[in-house]
């Protein structure tokens, strides 16, 4: 929603085992960005953003910790 460039697809692995195999899904939730960058589990927003930036070859962005100084 925050960017017109991002498309989000959610796959239910039991119905689409082939897609899950193709992306070697061993644990859920598993997130794959542009078929190149990936992580398993829920991550903080900024980690997610930086995984996206890594996938498109851009430097990471640093944030102040939430509620921090």
């Amino acid at each position, binding site marked *: 929603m925050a960017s017109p*460039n991002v498309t989000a697809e959610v796959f239910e692995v039991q119905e689409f085992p082939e*897609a899950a195999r193709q992306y070697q899904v061993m644990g859920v939730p598993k997130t794959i960005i542009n078929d190149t960058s990936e992580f398993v589990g829920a991550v903080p927003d900024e980690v997610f953003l930086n995984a996206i930036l890594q996938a498109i070859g851009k430097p990471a962005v640093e944030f102040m910790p939430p509620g921090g100084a």
Partner: protein
Amino acid sequence: MMPLLSDKDREILQERFEHLDAPVTLKLFGESDARSLLTLPGHTPNEMAKVTRELLEEVAALSDKLSLVTYDVNGDGKAEADRLGIQHIPAIVLGDDDGGRVRFYGAPVGNEFPTILEGIDALSNNTPKVRQEVALAVAEHVDQPVTVKVFVTPT
């Protein structure tokens, strides 16, 4: 036919949908009953697509802010499915976004259902779930197309 949602479910959802602001369109890509009742050689009817349609029809009927558009990927919905690159059915696309950028593949059962409800809330009330500073950074730095796939299980 027995409804999929109980009276209690309906009540809870109706109350939840009272907080919706802007209308939200749900696009469902599946196959028509007529076709899925036929047993064509090499064609397995997609039962989940049928259940998904019934569920979404029941959900959409609970709020005048929600509308459901169904596309038969084997029939007159094929052009739209091809345009958006819909690769599996059932597929649910949230919102009117021209690129169909928020999509769910699979029946909205288990954990997927609340996620879809949250997506409806976020779109209708324009409240992304990410922290505002992260949302701003996304808008600033993500300057090329990105596809994020998330694999989930129903439980």
